[in-house]
């Protein structure tokens, strides 16, 4: 929009490979702009916590109602893949933190490198996730091709959780009640988390595009900082998902 | 002025209970159970509310009249911005009042939650959109009507086989949601003879407003005759019609119009000789089309497991099964179906 000849504050670029940044017209100072965006983003992250909180509440609730089902359900998942993914995500969180640091210190090429590593981490995470989902599918625990099949009133069974009751039996061989609940919660939580991973990776790619043009430097690195926060949030949520789903206490 | 409505023949439910009497203050109906705390607290709170409402509107009206701006530049008479004692008073006094209300209300609700040991246990089964009742020490069920003995504690196990419903008897002041998969309980002690409304108070779909039962509170002598178990063996079609009205009429018509399910008219027909025979019906058995003749076995199966032989043109899973319906009632229903037959 036109600013009607209003003249705005400009942060000069620290070197020729960087661009200057113009503070938005309705802010008086760059600090005000930075702090406003940051506060807004923290508020947004708070909403993300509460969004996932609903899922966590559902998890804890049914963990309380069907503890044995959940324990056995957790054993159907591969804790090794889970631990591997945890490590990948922690590493990528570290590269992202380093990336933000490089932006703060105007190190353009290192910023690009660390962001690239973070995206790589995201890709590895999603590949491992895919392997995991595929294994569930192959074992018939979660049949993805039957995802939209209707509930069968006569049998009380769900086609996309075909074989969970064969896998999940107690010591006497009796199927545990409602094993699909564990898998449904597992899938919902990891799928929504996975969606965040994909969105986060997209945002980092966007940051890299800007970084290549030299938009980010010690005077202005706000987008890098915010995307970094988002990425750490994705990590934060996984830190809780891992023990709850893979190592069901 | 509204008499014509009250006598409207095509009304709400066929035969609702008599309109309840209104109590002396006009806001509630006359209490018919022992939960007098509800009325006491209601009117206490009501009085407190009226008191505060009168003060608030009184001050407002007085101010509007007395301090009305007469010239456009008239300043305010006072610029007081706070008065600590006053603010403390109007914080603390309401606090004390509401705590009294809380304690009173909680004590009253504890009574409602605690079922006396000597209560008679009934079962109320809710499903879209009717009520079925089981009685202690009696195999018979009643549909859409319930009989209780005056001054005897009556407790209910509430069951739902589909969605949320709520067991609500305004004159008894009791209400409890009926939740599928979980047995809720409710109890009261009816203290008045007569007929009472039982509403479903939790929205449950299409005919939510027609999910009604009439509750009869009767004397010990009448209760001993088991009025819910009256089944006239000489006239089973009449009993069958009652079952139809209570359980089946929301989905099956008797005039030939298909509703959610097929109409019952024409299930039995009169052949050329005037003898009653079952009609031919196309049904789906495991997805394969078959033609069958309507008979007692088919009707019984359709009531107990509706999807076994599904009439062509109607969806599966749309009828609730009635596996516990007694045989004599099923026979009554079939007799009633036969009365709908027309001659060729």
């Amino acid at each position, binding site marked *: 929009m036109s600013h009607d000849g209003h003249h705005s504050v400009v942060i000069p670029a620290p070197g020729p490979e960087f661009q200057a940044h113009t503070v938005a017209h309705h802010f008086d100072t760059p600090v005000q702009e930075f702090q406003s965006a940051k506060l807004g983003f923290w508020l947004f992250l708070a909403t993300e916590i509460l969004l996932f909180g609903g899922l966590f509440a559902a998890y804890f609730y049914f963990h309380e109602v069907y503890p044995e089902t959940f324990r056995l359900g957790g054993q159907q998942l591969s804790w090794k893949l889970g631990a591997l993914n945890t490590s990948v995500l922690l590493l990528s969180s570290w590269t992202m933190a380093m990336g933000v640091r490089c932006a703060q210190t105007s190190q353009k090429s290192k910023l690009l490198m660390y962001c690239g590593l973070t995206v790589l981490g995201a890709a590895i995470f999603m590949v491992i996730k895919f392997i995991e989902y595929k294994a569930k599918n192959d074992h018939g625990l979660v049949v993805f091709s039957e995802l939209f099949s209707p*509930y069968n009133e006569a049998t009380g069974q769900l086609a996309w959780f075909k074989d969970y009751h064969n896998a999940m039996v107690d010591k006497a061989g009796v199927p545990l009640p409602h094993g699909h609940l564990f898998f*449904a919660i597992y899938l919902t939580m990891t799928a929504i988390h996975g969606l965040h991973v994909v969105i986060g990776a997209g945002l980092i790619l966007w940051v890299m595009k800007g970084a290549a043009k030299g938009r980010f430097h010690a005077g202005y690195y706000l987008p890098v900082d915010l995307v970094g926060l988002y990425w750490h949030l994705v990590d934060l949520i996984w830190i809780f998902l891992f023990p709850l789903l893979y190592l069901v206490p | 002025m509204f008499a014509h409505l009250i006598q409207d023949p095509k009304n709400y439910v066929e035969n609702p209970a008599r309109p309840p009497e209104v109590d002396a203050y006009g806001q509630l109906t006359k209490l018919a159970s022992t939960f007098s705390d509800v009325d006491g607290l209601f009117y206490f709170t009501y009085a407190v509310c009226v008191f505060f409402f009168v003060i608030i509107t009184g001050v407002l009206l007085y101010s509007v009249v007395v301090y009305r701006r007469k010239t456009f530049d008239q300043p*305010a008479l006072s610029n007081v911005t706070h008065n600590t004692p006053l603010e403390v008073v109007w914080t603390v006094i309401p606090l004390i009042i509401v705590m009294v209300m*809380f304690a009173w209300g909680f004590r009253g*609700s504890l009574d409602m939650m605690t079922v006396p040991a000597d209560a008679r246990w009934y079962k109320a089964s809710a499903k879209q959109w009717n009520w079925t009742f089981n009685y202690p020490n009696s195999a018979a069920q009643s549909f859409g009507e319930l009989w209780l003995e005056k001054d005897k504690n009556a407790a209910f196990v509430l069951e739902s086989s589909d969605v949320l419903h709520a067991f609500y008897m305004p004159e008894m002041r009791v209400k409890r949601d009926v939740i599928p998969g979980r047995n809720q309980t409710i109890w009261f002690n009816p203290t008045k003879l007569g007929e009472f409304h039982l509403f479903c108070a939790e929205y449950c779909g299409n005919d939510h407003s027609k999910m009604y039962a009439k509750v009869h509170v009767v004397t010990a002598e009448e209760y001993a005759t088991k009025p819910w178990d009256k089944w006239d063996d000489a006239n089973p079609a009449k009993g069958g019609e009652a079952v139809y009205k209570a359980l089946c009429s929301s989905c099956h018509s008797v005039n030939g119009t298909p509703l959610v399910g097929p109409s019952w008219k024409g299930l039995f027909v009169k052949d050329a000789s005037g003898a009653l025979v079952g009609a031919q019906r196309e049904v789906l058995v495991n997805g394969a089309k078959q033609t069958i003749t309507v008979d007692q076995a088919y009707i019984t199966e359709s009531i107990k497991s509706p999807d076994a032989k599904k009439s062509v043109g109607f969806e599966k899973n749309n009828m609730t099964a009635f596996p516990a319906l007694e045989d004599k009632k099923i026979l009554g229903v079939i007799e009633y179906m036969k009365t709908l037959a027309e001659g060729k």
Partner: protein
Amino acid sequence: MTTNVPAVDVHGAAAEARPKNFINWSSGFMSWAGTLDHKRIGLMYLVGVSIAFLCGGLFALLVRLHLWEPNGALFSNAQYNQIFTLHGAFMVFIFVIPAIPGSLGNIILPLMLGAKDVALPRLNLLSFYLWLTGAVLATLAIVLGGFDTGWTFYTPYSLYTNQAVVTIGLAVFVLGFSSIFTGLNFIVTTHKLRAPGMTWFRMPLFVWALYATSLLQVLATPVLGITVLLVAFERLYHIGIFDPRLGGDPVLFEHFFWFYSHPAVYIMVLPAFGIISELVSVHSRKPLFGYKLIAFSSLAIAIISFLVWGHHMFTSGQSTYAMFAFSFLTFFVAIPTAIKEFSWVATVWKGSIALNSPMLYTLAFLVIFAIGGLTGVILGALNVDIHLHDTYFVVAHFHYVMMGSIALAFFAGVHHWWPKMFGVIYNETLAKIACGIIFIGFNTTFIPQFIMGSRGMPRRYATYVPEYAPFHQASTIGVIILAVGIALMVYYLVASLFQRKKAMENQWGGVTLEWLAPTPPPLENFNEPPVVTNEVYDYSTLDLQTMRTPVK
């Protein structure tokens, strides 16, 4: 058009020069659709929520006309169920929640703070488009088979019913994020863009109220988002969390739903409190009584509202102990609310009360909210609530709060800031008449509902036992009167835009910053960035002849 210019309007001549304001500084579709100006976005919201209100009102009218006869006068049960659901969903999600923050909040909040815009203008525009998407999706849901679950989407019914629940769930999800982003924006704006000298306790109470509202929007709405998402998943994939057939628990849904939807009541009503606080002060020309207590009571209400959601579930199989806790905490909401009402009344006391139309709407609010709030106390008592829950008593109670109080406060605010927003003034006589009609119509509609509710008439009934007929008919007559009043209001407000009768710069003699800005305000609001040196609501600085405060 200039037949009746008030004698004190010393700016009339200057206004003839038509300086550029936010409405006419540029034109063309994209200058509106792509605008980042908070006033234009607010104006688009105002138009949008007004249309949503009229739609919701139309559904309400149909509901009431249907209930003229015990057996239902107009529709089948299925149609009736869809219409009352549409009424609830449109009014709650598309009208009431965004109404005041989206329209008046967007336009007035930055002006009151002395800022050039909200802190995050792009997000503001996004939030408007999310609102629009949600509204379109909800309308689409009507076409795609409609939905008949009630606005509460209680499971398991919402899982089994064969209609467009997924679409409306998506609409609610999107509308939720619209609401979150508005709240987020206001919090940042309030924190970071206050004019020099505007300390927290010099902020007008409308700002305080919007701030408390925003906290609720940000902290409560995400849980609604995940809940409707889970309902949608449940319908598509049968995950089973809320489905008792699959081992799920419908009561868990109620907990999740009311964790949002109880605070949502305060998301709706707090901005209304804010408007009333402003208007009571300006039109009584008197500093607000108990300013700090009102400001803190907004925050107190915001926080307590997270602790009381269980009072919507007293009959739904919660444990007795949860009911104990929820009932106890519920009564605490009554205290800050009572403080507000008393403070407003004390502000009117010994004021200089202008009986103009914004003040009439305000007075109507004070009376109606007294009834709405006090009947809430009746419902807080556990055993009484068990009797009254899900009856017309509850319906009447929350309409006294939502329709009677919030919509009236919204009308009051629109009348109050109309001259500032458009530079024109509406027909004052018609406004007073309309206010009277609305007040009478509203009470005629809902007082009978209190009576039949306490006598046991359950809500969401398409048909009813005949003994309630007189009350239903009185209520239907009331809603017709109400509709006439609202139609009249819409008429004279719209007409004022064409009659172009000029308003004064400071029409009512307000001393908050928005009255320092030119009328209508230009793109970046103030010619000179304002500096605050006075306490808020200090009318001693107001020159009563020119209605101006000395410009620093």
